[in-house]
């Protein structure tokens, strides 16, 4: 069997006592390095404002609302339906299904061609200005990639300093989420003449909505 032969050949090429190596590997899985990034531009702790600042620098748009109930109003204001009532997909999770949406047509699947997709982020990373979005029941991750405008809602308390802290929040469960993405700005490409163009395959607009009192 190929698997066994490749692993055996690798094992034979290794130097060092096997038991000691097993111990080193086991220790690695327990080790939790705490990275503390320092940055040239600006100082002070990594904060919500840094998180927003970094996303905006990468062409995302950012808004703050006091509570989730304000979300439908905000979406209606910023959405561009091109004169028609925009279609919106949110996947059906309790968080969004319970809101009173107005001025948009709610569709069940992102594949039906919704102009607006709405997701809830499980974490935000101030270090890189990334939104962490996981697939789950009522939260198809395809929503994040198929609409022209992607609205991501994030609780203020879910914004953490580093990538490692975000992993702790996102991979905490029994099984890891099927798919999980760190999203740091709208879809972009530099593949034609080296020029950066937004909206390559995924969303052209990324709208971040921070929920909760400052």
């Amino acid at each position, binding site marked *: 069997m190929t698997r066994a032969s490749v692993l055996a050949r690798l094992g034979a090429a290794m130097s060092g006592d096997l038991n000691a190596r097993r111990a080193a*590997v086991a220790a690695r899985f327990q080790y939790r*390095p705490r990275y503390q990034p320092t*940055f040239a531009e600006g100082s002070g702790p990594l904060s919500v404002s840094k998180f927003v600042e970094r996303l905006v620098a990468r062409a995302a748009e950012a808004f703050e609302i006091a509570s989730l109930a304000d979300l439908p109003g905000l979406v209606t204001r910023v959405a561009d339906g091109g004169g028609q009532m925009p279609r919106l997909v949110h996947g059906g999770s309790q968080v969004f299904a319970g809101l009173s949406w107005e001025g948009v047509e709610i569709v069940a699947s992102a594949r039906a061609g919704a102009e607006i997709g709405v997701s809830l982020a499980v974490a935000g990373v101030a270090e890189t200005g990334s939104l962490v979005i996981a697939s789950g029941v009522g939260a198809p991750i395809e929503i994040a990639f198929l609409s022209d405008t992607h609205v991501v809602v994030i609780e203020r308390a879910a914004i953490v300093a580093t*990538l490692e802290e975000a992993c702790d929040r996102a991979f905490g469960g029994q099984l890891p989420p099927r*798919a999980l993405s760190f*999203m740091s700005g709208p879809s972009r490409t530099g*593949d*034609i003449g080296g020029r950066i163009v937004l909206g390559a395959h*995924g969303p052209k607009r990324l709208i971040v909505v921070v929920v909760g009192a400052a």
Partner: protein
Amino acid sequence: MIVGLERFPDAARAARRDMTLQEALSGLRGGLVAQRAAAKSKTPDFEAMRDHARDIRSHTLDHLDLYLAAYIAKAEANGISVYVAETADEARRIIGEICEASGARVVTKGKSMVSEEIGLNGYLAGLGIEAVETDLGEYIVQLRGEAPSHIIAPAIHVTEPQVEALFRRVHRDLAAVRRLDRAVDLVDEARRVMRERFLAASVGITGANFLVAETGSAVVVTNEGNGDLTANLPSTHVVLASIEKVVPTLADAMALLRVLGRSATGQDMTAYTSFFSGPRRDGETTGPTAMHVVILDNGRSALVGGPFEEMLSCIRCGACLNHCPIYTAVGGHAYGSVYPGPIGAALTPHLAGLQAAHHLPEASTLCGRCEDVCPVRIPIPRLLRQWRERAFEQRIGSAFSRRLLRLWVRLALQPRLYGAVMRLLVAGLERFGRRSGRFRWLPFATAWTRERDLAAPQGRTFQQLWAERQRGVEP
């Protein structure tokens, strides 16, 4: 696949004469090179990040058998089917069988250098399966019937007007009046065509930047989001990765991602960094119902523990290509290898044999910029020298060049004679070149003077200057 390695000298000469290619390559310095420099200047702890990244890679290679086994166990526990393929042929057959079992006629593909290495698209075409590259650069080179010329910017050799002409020729339903002279129009056009393919494909094939042993996840990094559409929409997701992509933990993956984006494009994080950890879970209504991971060896395990082991540390950022005086002069295709540039010149002789690939380690000035910018500090110049030594030992290369080398060795091993010959040579050249300070033509150096002048020596050799400096005489 790997073709035409023996032709490197001719291909390089032709590339220097190709003005369209030269124009396309001229954008590198102001583009990717400047972007990396800007990211480095904004990251005070960048050097420490690189040290940490190097240490992660060497620790992983020291225990690669155990981490690979740990990854496989975790991935299988997550519901992923894992295969280990010894050879390119075995990997192709496994993926072909998966595609046929799911009845696929169209498969979408995220960018994967390993799939180029094994010639997957051609194999699938032989089975009657159309493989559509979804990374915009890969799509462009696929339509042109070419291989990628850069490991992260596959179409870097193609100019905007060439893309317009290509789309007008291939996209038959495109109206003639449609404006396509700006990059943004071309991207929109590709997006329109590709969206249908994403929704139609029943199998999506991606590479992986990393395989995380701790969680059984395959990490896919893109800016376009094409990797995510490829992985999330079809009912089957296949990941093709090579054995050295394994990293121990999520924290290790994060530490490597910190140097990957900065080194590749100057980004602290690419637009999408995604972790795929299994098929659709209970209660979910979207996402692939089957996930397969094919792990390719193709000769890599033979490198472990040997003098070329560090090649396996490579995280495929492309920085060594962007900073290489050879790559930026001739582009990627001249190399004739799937992996061009400095790291390609180090890796290809192992994949294709030194006899076929011996020109590539020779195509280097050993200036060391590749090692300077490598995020995991691979000593590429040392690896290239090791190949040169082997080539000499194995009597590869022309008899003439070997005779010259032998002559050089004789001279270099006799310091007095060497010093005398050099003094004579430098003094003579100084006298002949005194008037203009440079040579427009010089016998035995026409390969140099054809493209540029050679500066005339200043009269004294390096050894003379050094000796004077040691005595405290200012030059």
